[in-house]
Structure formats: C-alpha cells, structure tokens
C-alpha cells in the first residue's frame, strides 16, 4: 500500500513538472562518461539531471543521451560505487553533443595483500605477487623479483646481489623463467632492477619446497615471471613514461583489431653518468664504458577464434660495463688493466593455447634466442655464445569431476661456444684465494646439449571428500652429464573448512652441475648432478571467512636434504693414468630446515603483512666438519604496511631484521713469492657471524588525477635510520688488519610517471 502511494506521488510530481516547463525549449544532451585520468568508458552508470530528475544510463562505450531537456540551468549528478560523487551545474540553451564527463575513482592504488586465490593457485608451494603489490612495495623499487625477497622463506642476500635465495639453498639453486622458459639472468648488473619492465609483468610466482612437476633442474626453487596480455578491454590505446634517478622508460599498448593487440616497452639506465662524475678524479680507476643497461619487451596477443589464442613475447636485455685500473689491486696483482663486461640476451616466446572444450586445454610454447656474455679481465677473458631453444607443451585433461591431469614436456636445447682464459676460482669457506695464485686455463669449447623433461601431474579429489591428492612424476635427462632421473613428487591438501587448509608435499629435485664444473679443461668431467629431497607441511587460515577485509595466516615447515653437492677440491687424483687436480668433487652434503609464517592484514586503509622465518642451513664435506651454510639466517623478520591517505596519497614502509650471515674468519696470511700476494689462512669454516641486519624503508606515493592523464610521484627512502649493516669484511694485504664494509647508507630514490 505504501509503495503504491509512493509511485502515485512520483508520477503526479513528474506530470506537474511537465506542465510547468511545457513552454520552455527542449534540447538534447549527448556525451560520454569516462573514468578520470585513465579515460576508461564507464558502462551501465546512471546519470541524473536535476532538478528535472531525468536519468540516462551509459552504454559499453560510456555514451549517454538525454532527450527533451528543458533549456536553462541544470545540475548533472553521477553516483557510482567506488567512484567519487560528481555534481556539476551549468546553463544549456541549445543541443549539446560530444561532451566528456570524468569521474574520479576513490583509489588508484590497489595494494592488495591477498595472495592469489586458492583456486587459481595450481602449485600448492607457490606464493604469488601480483602487479598491484610489487609495484608499490617499499624498498624494492617496484621490481617484481626484488619484491619476492619480502616473502617468508626467502633469505636476504647482501651487497649488490639481488639473487633470490630460497629456504637455505644456494643462489645458484634458484631458476628464473619468463613464461616458463629459462632466462640466463634476471637482474641487470648490481641487482639494480630485473630485466623486464614491472608494468609488463602480470604476476611473479615463487615456487619453494615441494614445488610441482612442471619445473625441474633447480634444487632451491623457481621464480617464474608471467607477462600480461595487452590491456585493451577499456581503451584502445594507452601508455606511460617514467623517469627516476637511475633509469627512464616507457610502455605503450593498444588494439590492432578486434582480435589482436600489442604492448611494447623499453628502458635504459643513465647510472653511468653519475658514476662517471663520481670517479672523475679517481687515481686508481678510469671508467671507460659507463655501466649501462637497457631492455626491450614486446608482447603480441591474438584471440584467433573462440578456442585458440596466440601470445608472443619478445624480450631483449643488454648490460655493459668497462673500466681501466691504473695500478694492480693490492691483494691481487693479476687484477689489473682493462675490464670489460657485456651481457646481452633475447628471447622470442610464442605461446599457443587451445581450449578444446570445457575439459581439455592444450598449451605449446617455444623460447628461442641467444645469450652472449663477454668478460675481459686484463689478460683473462671469458666469452660465451649460446643459442637456446626451449620447448614446453602441456595437455590438461579433466577426466572426471574427481580427476584432473596434465601431461607435459619441458625440453631445452643449447648450442654453446665458450672461449676462455681464466684462473680456476677457489673460494673455500667463502674466502677467495688471490686469482693470481690459481692456474690459468685456456680453452675453446663447443657443445650441443639437450635437456629432456617429461611430467605427469594429477589432481584427485574424491567426491564429498575434504582430501585432495596430487601425485606427480617427472622424468629428466641432462645432456651435460648424460644422466637420467625419475623424480616422484607428491602433495596432499585437506580442507577442514572453507577457511582452514592443511597441506603437505614432498619430492626429489635434480640439478645439473655448472658446465665449468664438468669441463675437462676447467673442472672434473666425472662430476654428476646433485639432488635435494624436499618435504614440507603447513596450513593456511583465512580469518576473513568470506569478508573482503580482515586477517589471514599461513605457516609451513620445510626441509631439504642435499646430496652429491659439488665442492672445491685441492686433491690430486689419477685420471687416464696421469696425476691431475680433482678441482671439484661430489662429496658435499647439506640440510636446510625451518618454519616460515606470514600474517596478512587487509583493512580499508591499512594493508600489509608480517612474515617470520626461523631456519637452519648446514653443509658438510669430507674435508670439513658440519658447518653453517653461507646463507644460513636463523631469524628473518619482515613487516610491510601501507596506508592509503586522502587525495591519492599513500604511505608505506618495510622493516627487516635478519640474523647476520656466517663467515669464515681469516687468521693470517702466507706470502706467495711467485705472485707477490698473501694467501689467506682460514680459521674454522663459517664459524663466525656478521652483525644482524636491520633496515627501515619508507615510501610515499602521490597521484594527481587529471581528466585525461595521471601523474604519479614517489619517493622511496631505503635505510631511513641509516643503520650500519656490515655486508662483508675486507682485509689488509697480509690479512693482519680487517674492517667491515657497510651496506648502503640512507638512500633516497625519486621517480615520476605520467600515464596517458
């Protein structure tokens, strides 16, 4: 009854209004409603004209039309969820067309702490950071791979290395891929930034203990970068450029036609300009080739038809550095003269995906390209030229509502030519002997290597069961060592309820030795592949229980048992009837275990996480008793938080506390008369620890939303408290004096970005 009365009143009032204005001129107003800054057309948004209470609804292009609007003063009102209310008054006396109205989104910085949804997360060991997360994490400069270092279980690395050390493994045990295909380097020199522009990366997956059978050849884990498709859903063309204190770059993406689109981006550094100035009057160093890097990324996407899609990634990267030492180094006179380092690689990665039907999907991709590396160190050199082709394919079959299965292959073919004249490195206990004391090996080697990998992954969830079983099998053949391996992997999940998940996984992981370790010229051809047995179990609890905001917590125990690790050897052995240095042996072993936990919080204004890892990583070999591994870090604590303030300000911070790394003390030096150097005398291997590391980083982001463009500015201050964190120890020429080399002091970084 009340509802009927209300309708009658409304109708009557409109009638009265129509009678009152019948003598006025009626006009048309036509225009588009767009999101402010991004120019995205807004669909199905109601626009009201007051005082006439006229309403129009936008179409998928954002178009709206008011007909028969009385001329005179009107007020336009737009209200939409997640957008700021717009009210605008103006006089109209004749038809209006082609006007653009912009409404501002409430937030342009969606720093979501939600890890990828469980249903999207195929690998139970995976943690993923999405673009919205890594772009604005403090201390990582928007870099996807550096951002991974904030996750639990990831060890901190010191100095200029931005390698990712996973759960007490070695940095060399981590594999880096883009679209599933291995790339030779993931960071430009000095770990300044990764080789792909962050805005072209959709997601970075961090695969740790117990990872699935799709990947192999890595005892530690995998950092998998996934690029995104060009975003042309809302706009046919868009882009941005940026400038910060190290580099500049731009990205452009657009629609080619209804099926296809493109994305192109590029960056170059000018850090060399600053270094040139800093080293201008340096008595010992003359910078001949400024350290520079550049990268280029091109993505082409084509929705061929309803079932097939083609995505092609092209990635190219180049790093250069050169300098001349005016006098040989004190502790190592063979380090002298001209230095030159150039690294470049490219990959073309076409990926074809076909959805045969609801139950069957196939994926095929090829990663083809070249790796070139030149290192010229005085009279020594190393030049590597590799043509690399990797092929991945997968058939994803849902056999029933209970059983889903994937069959795949992961092959890699390398055609390599190496020319080198290098001393054999010896870094026992993390202490390097002067390279002038080492024998120089000179060789030219060409090789063709094929690594073959086959896998079968299964996911079985019996009806009405809370259990999910993931039995998998991986077969590998390594071309370098001509070994074949069968690697069973098993994972289980148990859903106690929608918010609490228990999980466990185990598997065997093989990793080929480094090529130089098996080289007859440089290493030991009898070296075989080391392996690691992974096991992990833990749980995930989502306290939000369906709500958009709240807390979630996860915790895992992990363990790795390493076998046949390659270690340096100074033994002499008999091979083919002659006495030769063993150089390397497979007599190393190790174990890493720990507990990693993460508490994530996601509230209206506050977002972030707290992660803590307690771990222990040990190694051993016949020459040394059990000792703590170089990257053993007992406590690793990270706190990240961001606060969204009004007017598109956002403040974020990161605090880290990490136990100092073990190191081997040097207790003296023995004078080498042949080379005019002192050979360090090592104390007990890794028996001392550096001081604990702690650092606070702060970041502020501000966006200016104009009608057709968005300008962003950020300041990212690393080590705000200017904490003195020792990164390494350096010694006097005879090792009788020592001092700590501190990490970076307070370091601000500035950047500006314009989106159009």
């Amino acid at each position, binding site marked *: 009854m009340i509802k009927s009365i209300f309708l009658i009143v409304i109708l009557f009032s409109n009638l009265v209004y129509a009678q009152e204005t019948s003598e006025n001129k009626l006009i048309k107003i036509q225009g588009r409603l767009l999101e402010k800054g991004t120019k995205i057309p807004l669909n199905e948004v109601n626009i009201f004209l007051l005082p006439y209470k006229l309403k129009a609804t936008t179409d998928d292009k954002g178009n709206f039309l008011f007909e028969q609007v009385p001329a005179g003063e009107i007020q336009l009102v737009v209200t939409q969820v997640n957008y700021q209310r717009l009210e605008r008054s103006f006089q109209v006396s004749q038809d209006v067309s082609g006007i653009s109205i912009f409404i501002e989104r409430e937030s342009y910085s969606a720093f979501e702490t939600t890890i990828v949804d469980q249903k999207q997360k195929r690998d139970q060991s995976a943690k993923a950071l999405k673009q919205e997360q890594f772009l604005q994490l403090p201390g990582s400069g928007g870099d996807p791979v550096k951002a991974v270092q904030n996750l639990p279980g990831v060890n901190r690395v010191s*100095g*200029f*290395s931005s390698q990712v050390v996973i759960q007490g493994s070695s940095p*060399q045990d981590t594999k880096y891929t883009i679209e599933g295909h291995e790339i030779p380097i993931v960071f430009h*020199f*000095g770990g300044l930034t990764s080789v792909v522009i962050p805005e072209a990366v959709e997601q970075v997956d961090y695969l740790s203990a117990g990872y699935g059978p799709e990947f192999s050849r890595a005892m530690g884990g995998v950092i998998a970068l996934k690029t995104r498709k060009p975003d042309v859903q809302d706009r046919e063309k868009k882009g941005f450029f940026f400038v910060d204190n190290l580099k500049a770059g731009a990205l452009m993406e657009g629609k080619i036609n209804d099926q296809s689109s493109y994305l192109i981006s590029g960056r170059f550094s000018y850090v060399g300009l600053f270094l040139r100035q*800093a*080293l201008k009057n*340096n*008595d010992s160093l003359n910078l001949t080739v400024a350290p520079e890097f550049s990268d280029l990324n091109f993505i082409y996407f084509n929705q061929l038809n309803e079932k097939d899609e083609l995505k092609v990634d092209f990635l190219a990267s180049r790093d250069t*550095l050169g*300098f001349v030492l*005016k*006098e*040989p180094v004190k502790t190592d*006179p063979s380090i*002298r*003269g001209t230095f030159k*380092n150039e*690294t470049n690689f490219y990959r073309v990665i076409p990926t074809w995906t076909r959805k045969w039907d609801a139950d069957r999907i196939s994926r095929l991709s090829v990663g083809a390209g070249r790796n070139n590396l030149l*290192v010229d*160190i005085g009279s020594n050199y*190393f030049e*590597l030229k590799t043509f690399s082709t990797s092929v991945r394919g997968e058939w994803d079959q849902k056999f029933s509502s209970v059983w889903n299965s994937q069959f795949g292959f992961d092959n890699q073919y390398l055609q390599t030519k190496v020319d080198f004249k290098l001393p*054999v490195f*010896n870094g*026992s206990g993390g202490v390097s002997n002067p390279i002038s004391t*080492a*024998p120089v090996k*000179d060789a030219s080697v060409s090789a063709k290597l094929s690594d073959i990998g086959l896998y079968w992954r299964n996911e079985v969830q019996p009806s009405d069961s809370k259990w999910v079983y993931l039995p998998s099998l991986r077969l590998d053949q390594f071309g370098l060592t001509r070994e074949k391996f069968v690697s069973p992997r098993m994972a289980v999940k148990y859903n106690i309820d929608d918010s609490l998940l228990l999980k466990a996984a185990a598997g065997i992981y093989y990793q080929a030795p*480094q*090529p*130089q370790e098996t080289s007859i*010229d440089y290493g030991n051809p009898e070296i075989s592949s080391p392996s690691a047995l992974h096991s992990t179990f833990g749980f995930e609890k989502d306290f939000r229980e369906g709500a958009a905001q709240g807390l979630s917590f996860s915790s895992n125990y992990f363990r790795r048992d390493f076998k046949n690790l390659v270690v*340096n*050897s*100074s033994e002499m052995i*008999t091979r*083919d009837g*002659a*006495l*030769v*240095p*063993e150089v390397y042996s497979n007599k190393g072993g190790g174990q890493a275990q720990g507990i990693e936990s993460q508490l994530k919080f996601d509230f209206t204004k506050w977002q972030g996480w707290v992660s803590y890892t307690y771990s222990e990583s040990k190694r051993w070999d016949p020459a040394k008793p059990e000792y703590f591994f170089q990257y053993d870090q007992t406590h690793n604590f990270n706190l990240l938080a961001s606060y969204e303030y009004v007017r598109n300000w956002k403040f974020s911070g990161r605090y880290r506390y990490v136990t100092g790394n073990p190191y081997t003390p040097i207790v*003296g030096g*023995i*004078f*080498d*008369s*042949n*080379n*005019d150097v002192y*050979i360090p005398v090592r104390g007990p291997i890794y028996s001392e620890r550096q001081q604990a590391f702690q650092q606070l980083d702060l970041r502020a982001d501000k966006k200016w939303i104009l009608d057709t463009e968005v300008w962003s500015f950020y300041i990212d201050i690393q080590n705000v408290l200017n904490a003195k964190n020792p990164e390494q120890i*350096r*010694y*006097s*020429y*005879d090792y009788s*004096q020592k001092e700590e*080399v501190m990490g970076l002091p307070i370091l601000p970084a500035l950047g500006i970005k314009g989106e159009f």
Partner: protein
Amino acid sequence: MNKMKMILSLGCFCFLFLSCQKDTFKEYSKLEDFRVLALLPDLPEVSPGATVVITPYLSDVANTGPYTFVAKSCFDPGVAYGAKPTCDGGSGVVDIASGAVTGLSATAYTGTVNSFSVAIPAGILALYSNVDQYNGVSYLVTYDVTNSQGKTISSFHRIVVSTRTTKNSNPVIADIMSNGTSLGTTPAASQVDLSVSLATGYQENYDYKKSDGTLVGATETSLITYFYMDGSTKYFRTANPGDVNTYTAPDSYPSGRDSYIVVVVRDGRGGVAADKRKIN
C-alpha cells in the same frame, strides 16, 4: 655458466663500488714491520733433478732481530687449487735448512740474507700428463722466519719443473731510474718520477700447451712493486718497467738509519729480481 657469470659480473660491480671506498690499512709499499719481500730463485724453471738456490729478501726497519729460519720443500699439495701452502703433513717433505738468518745489516735493514739450496726430485714429473710435463709442475719451497719477539712470517715459492726446452730465466734489473737518470740521493720534500730499466729481452716469449696438446705462444707480463721506507709513492705496483711512478720524498729523512727504495720485478712465471737504492 650462470654461476661463473654471476661471479664475474658481481665481482666487477663490487670492485667498482669498493674502488671508491678508502681503507685505513697499513700501506703495502711502506717498509716498516718485519716482512719477506721475495724469495729469489737463481733458476725459476728447471728440469727434474736440478738444484735451485733460493735467496730470501727481507726487510725489518723496526730492527726486531736476531732471526731464525726454517726452510722445507715438498711436492706441491695443490696450492693453486686451494690447498694450504705448507709442507707440514705433505708428501715427500725435505728439511732443507734451518738456523740463524745472517746478512740483514744495520742502517739498511733490508736486503738479501743467507741462501739455501733445493734439490728437485728426479721423478717429480713421472705421474703427470705430457701437457702438464711441458707446461710445468710446481715444487714447493717454504721459508718461515721468526724474529726475537716470536713473530713468524711464513712464505713460499713454487719452482716450476718442466720438460720445456727453453726454460724461463729471471728478469734482470739494469737500473732504477729517477727522472730518467739512475736513482740516487733524493732531496727531502722533492718529487721524482721513478721507473725501472730491465736488461734487454726482459719480456721473454714462451709457449704453453693447451689441453688438446696444441702449442700457444705468449709473452711474459711484468709486475713491478715499489717499496719505500720514507715518503710515499703514487702507485705501489706498475705493470710495465717503463711506467712512471711518482715518489714524494719525506720533509726530512730520519736520523740513525738510511732510507731506501726497493724494487721487486716478477715475470709472472716464477722469475723474480730485486734491487734497492739508498736515497738519503
């Protein structure tokens, strides 16, 4: 090759960064404490069964003598591959000589001391490949010298034993030059350009065998180290004998001892030569 690439690249970048940082360590070239500057072999490369005479070159401006020494020799335990350079517990250890160090005279406190002879085992090459026999196998000589305060300096020299027909010989220092003339008295607070004049043919041409047995030609690379008792040098090492190294004399020379500049030249293949000049 990722590991090697990482080591090389990271090393370059770290080195670049560290080059900008000053340390507070004692100067390599300043002769102060008791130290061994070189072990001078009369023959840096020999055939099996040969005898080599080693003459230590010491410095001790602090005058902490008297000194005793112990010299041993043994098969190289694999120093090049990381083994500790000592004969203790090694294979085929020979106690060559021990006793008092003689020859380090007052007012100079720097120079050669009593030498000793090393007999190279005749069968040292027997177990090695033809390539290693040609390129040379190391025979280790250790020399530990202790001063009156009980401080021991350990040093070693590896004698190259090979089947190569033309053996390496020591470089010969013809003169130490100051502004183009022979180095002599240098006025206090003055600045001169030092260089070294080596005897003709100081950079020998030689060849070595690659692992496939092919011969590769090469030329020696010299390393010249400058030491001083007072004042300072711009560089402590140079890569070529003719390279200029600026020496700044002290404002005044100390009384009670002489002031010397010492030059040690190495050829990178075990050949060593040393010479000194009194400059006050």
